[in-house]
Structure formats: C-alpha cells, structure tokens
C-alpha cells in the first residue's frame, strides 16, 4: 500500500509544497509521541524523505498542563533530501496553552496554529502561568490560527459508543491527527490499520479511535475555516527497502548484525542511563539471537563484565552516557592494555556532571580521546544520523574484532531519539567481519602480533594449549609476561599507538560535499551533519564556495584530511561544545580552525550555521 490519498473536497484549493515542518505539542499525557509517530509512519510510507525530533519532558510526569510537562514531536518531510527536523515550524498542533507558548518562538510567520480550545480554560491558563488567554490577545497575530474544540468534537463523534469519559478524551489526539492528514493530504489507511492492530483486544477502542481520526479529517474537509490543502509529493529516494529508525534502535541492530555476521555472540553489559537505556531495552528483546544483556550493579560492573565476556570470546559491548563513561575510564584503560575487542557506546547528553540529562550535546569528544590515565589510545567513531548509528555500530565491532582493541562509539541524545528513513542494507553488502579465535598452540604467544593489523591473538578460555594470563600491568612484547623494563615499555606504548593509527589505512579518503576547494571548509562530526549540510547547501545556493567534511573517524583521522584542509581559505568547525574537534584539528594540522560552539543542550539550527558561515566569510 502506497500513496493512497483520500477523496478530495472539490471546493478547497490544493497547494504543492517541497517540504513542510509539523509539530505536535501537548501535555505528556496527551499521546503526542504516538500521534507524531503515526504521522511519521504514514509519511514514510507515502514516500517522503523525513526527519523527526521528539522532545520529552525532563520529568516522568510533570504536573499536567504545565510548561515542564510539555511533550513535543516535530517532523520535517519533503520531496527532496530532508536533512534536519526543521528550524521553523509550518504547522503547530497545540493541545494546551503550555504547548502553545513553548512552541511559539519556533513558528514561521503566517504559519498554521491549530489549538484545542477546550483546553484553554481559566484553569489551563493558570497551569501554564499565563495571565491572559493567548487566543484573545495579540500573541497569535502573526499566525493563521484555527481554534477548534477538539475535545468536544471528539466526544460528539463517539457519543453513541457510551464509553468512559476518560477513554473518550484519550481519543482526541486521533482527531488532531486526522486534521493533519487532511491538511497535508496524507492517507488515513495506515493509521486506521494500525489502530486495528494496536487495540485488537478492545473493539470499542478501535472504533472510537478510528472515528476520531475520520472525524478530524472530515471536520477540515467540511468546515469553511480550512480552505487550503497542501501536498508534499514523494521524494526520490535511492531504491531499496526502507524503514524509519531512531538512532538507538539502529545502533542496537548494528550490534546484532555484527554479532550474527562475525560469529561472536553478543554480550551487552550495561547500566541504565538516559539517553542510552533504550539500547539495553532493545537488545533485551532479542534474546533469540543469543544476545546476553546483563544489567550490572553500576557502569564499572557493566564494562567489567563486558571485558570478561570479551576475554571469553564474546562480541562485548557496553552502552552508557557521559557520567557512566567517566566512571568507565579506568576500565577502558584496562581494555587497552589487555588488547581485547570491546565496543563502548557513549550516547552523549548535556553536561558537565548530571547536567541536562534529557538534552543533547557533543561535549564528550575529549573524554573519548583523552579521558584515561597514561597513554591509552583507542579508536573513536561517531554516528551522524539515526540510520548511520547502524553503520557505525557495525564498523566499530569490525574494528574491535579485527584489531583487538576497545572502540569508542559516540552518539548523542538527539540521534538517539530522532528518526529518519533508513535504507535497510542487504546482508551481503555488509562489510566482512569475523571473530578470529586462535586455536593453534603452535607458535602461540599471547602478545605476538599479526604483522598487518598488529592485533594479538584472541585465544579464548576453553581452547586447549593456549592457557595464558593477561592483566593491566605492562607486559613484555610477544610473551606478555609482566615487564617493567624501560625500553619494553616504550615499545609497548608505541605498539598500542601504532595499532590504532594503522586503522587509518582502512579509512577511505574524505571527499568534501559541495565544492572541492574554495573559501570555506566546514568540518563536523556526529549528529550535526544534517544541519551543516543543509546550511552549506543553502549558502552555496547563495553563491559561496563551500565544502563540507563530516568525520566518522575521530581517531585515527582520515589519512587525507590534511590535503583537504589546505584546499580552502578558511576552516569552520561547528560543534555542540566549546570547540573540541576544532582543538584536535588545530593541534594536528596547525590550521587556524574557527571554533563555532553551541552549548544549549539543543541541536544546531540550520540558520545558525548559515549565519556563522557568512560571518566566517566576511
């Protein structure tokens, strides 16, 4: 089923758009996330490219109707490349006053605002700390406001079902969804079907929700207030099978894929922490892949168990966020020393300390690169989009297994939660990956190295004749026995560094997007990719000669980066921190990279980067 459109009301006019940004906002009890994902699924099936960004309240259940209780879900969809969830909102559906005021500043002038008037009573305004009703004052002057009694209309639609009032009111989000489907000419079929599956056990609920959805749609179709219906034609995506994934889901799938393809059973040692927990949740659901998820007593127990599992032959993983990563520092050093494969995922959040746990930030790059005592280098990879989390998790596993090293994967709260269409890879297209267990006792030495990768052998307990001891003390080259000899230490420090550096050979050259040389090279990493690309495209369209390099490999850096950097007059590094990658580039290449830091717990807006580009070029 694709591209089914509802019958059109001939009295209304239709306007084609290249893209649109819609935000659903309401109280966390209002089912906003569900509404948003339904809209997203329908839009994906419809064939648009898209990007989404949910926003949850920081509290589990902040008092209903208050500002801290607002839940939001934004989707940007279009018929061209959609790179970000959108700077500015074309249409806002606000289920209560708090949701309205929280979103106002992001709304385009002349944008659409649909409000549920039933929740703009005196009491509701008070909860949102408003002294006057925004529907009555000047607040909404700049916008096209549709004041709809959504609750009342929903009730009316399901009246005869004689349902409990609380249940009825829970249907109102489907009414709102129906309105949006009308507004953007989306088919209702997928959601109607979904409702059927979801509430299969309660036919009355199925009926009520379906009716609400249809009622919303019909309401727009019938009422005079709504005159224009929009159309956003499907995008031309590369052929393939797609699904919409969040970063955390994609990361989990990447790990399972790596385990399945390599033959090393997946072991996750983890301790819950926002925004990494969903990886633990997701992997715990797939035990039929032989996945072991071990929720440890703390992060140190989690990574400790992962190191033990790696010793015993598993594809071992630990997932955490900044604070947990800080606790893990000593254990990462151990993994570096014992040279075992390990994938360490840090889903970054706002810091320092407990910081802004529900917000996003990229301020743990230094920690990933340098946050250990002694010289303890480890490869560091960063994912740049929800779907890319799959690729990076898989690639990190590959490197870990091939080089016998702990590999650090950086994602962040924004990637973790936001979604985008992901082309599901053909299994045969995935890079080769293999657990190479040593079995042959002949010539075995625990720290003898593969001449190419410098990897030591993976001789797992249970293998006869390979009994040996590893540990955190410095070891003698080849034999692996404890050794404090000065020159041996220097050799081992060097070997550990060279092993990581050698991975660069496998990293393809970076090829800047946009102009291959020119005035400005923008270098980014991680979740900022969409915003940077969109901004660069826009400024190039405005006549600028700009290239954009987005780094997946932060350590080692791609081997041709130096050559690329010198082809531009200036280098700009936008990051959600105070300039950590910029520091790295400055030090490594002695290039006067311009720091563009943002420390607001929020992703970049395209326009912020555009403005900075212009400033840099001035």
């Amino acid at each position: 089923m694709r591209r089914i459109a509802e019958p059109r009301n001939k009295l209304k006019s239709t306007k084609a758009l290249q893209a649109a940004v819609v935000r659903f906002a309401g109280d966390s009890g209002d089912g906003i996330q569900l509404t948003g994902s339904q809209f997203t699924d329908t839009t994906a099936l419809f064939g648009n490219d898209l990007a989404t960004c949910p926003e949850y309240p920081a509290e589990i259940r902040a008092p209903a109707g208050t500002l801290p209780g607002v839940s939001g879900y934004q989707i940007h969809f279009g018929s061209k490349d959609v790179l970000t969830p959108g700077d500015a909102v074309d249409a806002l559906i606000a289920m209560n006053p708090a949701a309205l005021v929280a979103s106002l500043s992001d709304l385009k002038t002349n944008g659409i605002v649909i409000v549920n008037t039933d929740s703009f009573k005196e009491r509701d305004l008070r909860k949102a700390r408003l002294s006057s009703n925004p529907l009555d004052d000047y607040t909404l002057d700049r916008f096209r406001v549709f004041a709809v009694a959504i609750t009342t209309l929903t009730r009316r639609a399901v009246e005869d079902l004689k349902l409990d009032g609380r249940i009825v009111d829970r249907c109102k989000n489907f009414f709102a969804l129906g309105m949006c489907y009308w507004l953007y000419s989306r088919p209702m079929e997928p959601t109607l079907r979904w409702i059927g599956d979801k509430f299969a056990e309660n036919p009355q609920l199925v009926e009520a929700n379906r009716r609400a959805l249809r009622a919303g749609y019909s309401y727009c179709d019938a009422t005079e207030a709504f005159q224009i219906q929009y159309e956003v034609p499907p995008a031309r995506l590369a052929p393939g099978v797609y699904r919409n994934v969040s970063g955390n889901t994609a990361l989990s799938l990447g790990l399972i894929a790596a385990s399945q393809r390599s033959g090393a059973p997946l072991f996750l040692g983890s301790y819950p922490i926002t925004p990494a927990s969903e990886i633990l949740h997701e992997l715990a659901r797939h035990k039929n892949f032989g996945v072991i998820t071990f929720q440890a007593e703390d992060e140190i127990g989690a990574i400790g168990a992962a190191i033990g599992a790696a010793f015993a032959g598993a594809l071992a993983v630990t997932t955490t966020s900044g604070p947990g990563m800080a606790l893990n520092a000593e254990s990462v050093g151990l993994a570096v020393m014992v040279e075992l494969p390990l994938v360490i995922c840090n889903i970054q959040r706002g810091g320092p300390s407990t910081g802004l746990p529900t917000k996003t930030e990229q301020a743990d790059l230094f920690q990933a690169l340098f946050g250990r005592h002694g010289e303890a280098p480890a490869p560091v990879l960063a994912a740049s989009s929800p779907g890319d989390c799959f690729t990076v998790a898989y690639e990190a596993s590959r490197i870990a297994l091939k080089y016998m090293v702990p590999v650090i994967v950086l994602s962040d709260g924004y990637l973790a939660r936001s979604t985008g269409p992901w082309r599901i890879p053909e299994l045969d297209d995935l890079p080769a990956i293999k657990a190479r267990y040593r079995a042959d006792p002949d010539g075995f030495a625990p720290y003898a190295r593969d001449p190419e990768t410098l990897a030591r052998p993976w001789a797992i307990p249970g293998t006869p004749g390979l009994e040996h001891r590893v540990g955190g003390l410095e070891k003698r080259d080849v034999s692996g026995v404890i050794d404090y000899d000065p020159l041996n230490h220097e050799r081992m420090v060097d070997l550990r560094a060279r092993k990581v550096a050698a991975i660069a050979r496998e990293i393809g050259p970076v090829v800047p997007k946009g102009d291959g040389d020119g005035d400005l090279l923008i270098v980014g990493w991680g979740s900022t990719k969409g915003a940077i690309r969109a901004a660069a495209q826009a400024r190039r369209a405005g006549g600028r000669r700009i290239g954009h390099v987005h780094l997946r490999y932060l350590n080692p850096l791609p081997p041709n980066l130096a050559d690329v950097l010198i082809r531009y007059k200036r280098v700009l590094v936008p990051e959600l921190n105070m300039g950590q990658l910029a520091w790295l580039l400055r030090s490594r290449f002695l290039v006067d990279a311009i720091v563009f830091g943002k420390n607001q717990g929020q992703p970049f807006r395209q326009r912020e980067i555009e403005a900075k580009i212009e400033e840099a070029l001035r």
Partner: protein
Amino acid sequence: MNAPASSYKKEDFETDQDVRWCPGCGDFAILSALQSVFADLGVPREKLVIVSGIGCSSRLPYYVNTYGFHGIHGRAPAIATGVKLANPDLEVWIATGDGDALAIGGNHLIHALRRNIGVKILLFNNRVYSLTKGQSSPTSELGQKTKSAPYGSIDPPFNALALALGAGATFVARSIDAFLPHLKSTLRRAAAHKGAAFVEILQNCLVFNDGAFGRLTDKNARGENLLVLEDGQPLVFGRRHDKGLRLNGLDFEAVVMDGGSADHDVLIHDERRSGEGYAYLLARMSDHADLPTPIGVFRDVQRPCYEDSVRAQIREITKEQGAGDLEKLLRAGSSWEVRE
C-alpha cells in the same frame, strides 16, 4: 600437549613465572593448595579461569597454569561474571584480598553473591593492604596500627562472612593458610558447589601484619579459640574437645561438656540448614571474644545459579520465538520499498 584432565599433577598447574611474594608469605600455601586441588578436580586445564584484582593476593593467576586475568583493583567479580556468563562451561575462580574484595570491590562482591553467579571467590584476608605497603583494610581491627592509621585504627571492621550472608551467599566457608589439609578440603568443597562460593582464607602477611591470626594457628592457643565445623558433627571445641555450643534463645553460648545433660543441647552442624539464622550466628561468632572462631563450611545451600537462569531464559524465548533471523529483524516494523 595438555595432559588428560584425569592424570594432572600439581606441577601441571605451575607456571614459569618467578613467584614474587615475600618468602614465608601465607599466599604460598594458598597457591599450593589451589594447584593441588586443581590437579584433583578432573577439569581440563583450559576450562579453568582465575580472575583477580590488585594486591599481593591478586598476583596468584600468574602462578597457575590456567587461563588467567589479573584485573584492576576491586573488579574481579565483575570480570569473572562476564567470563562465566559468556561461557558457563568454564570453571571460574577469583583470587582477591580484603582490600580488593571488601573495600573498592565491595559492591561487585555483594552483587555477585546476590545473583549467585557460579564463581568461586577466594578472599585472602590478611587484615591489611599489603601490596601498597601496609595501610588499614576494611578488616583491620580496632586499634591496629597501620601506615594510614599510625595512632591505631578507629574503623570497625567488616565481618566478611556476615556481609556475604547478608548479601545472599549460598556457600560460605572459612579456612586458614596455615592449615593445608583443611584449606584443600575447603577449596574442594567450593569447587563442588553450584553457584557462588565465598571462601574467606585467613592469611598471614609477615611483613605488614605478622601474627594477625596467631590466636587461631598457634598450637597452644588454637584449641580454645578455634572451632572446626564438620557437617553432621556437634559444634565442639576446646583443647580437650570439652566445650560445645548451644542455643540460648537466639544466641550461641559455650558450655562445658562434662557428660551431663547439657551435652545433649550441643548443636549439630548442618551446612544445608534452610533458615538463614544459623549460618549468620556462626558467622558472627568471631565478633565475640567469648566464643571461638569457626572454620570450615558454614553454609552450602542451593539456589538457581545466575548463568543457568540467563541461559534458560534465552533457550525458552528462542523456543517460543524461533532462532533470530537477522534479515527479518532488520525489516521489522513498518518498512517500505522504493523502486528504481
């Protein structure tokens, strides 16, 4: 290459590493006992893994020719848990010290015991930090002078066995470095236990806390101070085996066995006793100056062990859902196809 498991000799478990303990250290006896027990177990050498933390005691894996992992300070139970979960066929032993296990590693220890993961935990208790040259440990005694407590320790010590029981340990035992046969038989019992086995081994550090257990090992003193637990046998001690323990309400008290009626009150040791109070009271005895310190197996009961539960759940779910199919998994949820 490897000898058949059944014909191992103690020497098969020695390595070519120089043993770097002080001559006379109690650790030698423990090492030797463990090597003997390993030789007798009939477990193929490659299936044995020893994990340790940091400390003099934690050097042990280097000296035993099995797989070994000298971890970082306090984390041996975490590492061992990962090893055992990843491969439950392995026999996983932990060598740890009073600082390693009870100070920095306390949390991992109690959680390993709670989960009842099948690892054998040998705690070398010398009541001091030896490797770092003589600071107080969580088992240092009140008033004990150490480098970090030059005026005497004011920190009340843990009772390691009571702590282990409080955490839910299914096997709890104590032995002494100086009593080789007892130590070996205790290790053998730990090896036989399914689930987490916790063994406190009183170990003499002759450099930083020499004679800490003299009361218990000294030929003249030990009769009155030591009670050797034997399953099914009465709780009897004394130089002339003339004293027994009986219950007074919920407390133990020592009585002289004079052939009189009191003799019948003397408790019979029962390692498998289901109620938790008995083993706990035994464990607390060493806190009481008027009671002897027991050694032997305090408690040996069965609970499901963690690695089994983990595997059982995986098996069950796989049976229900079928083995995972990667292709299907990737395409799960609503997917759609874009054609050329």
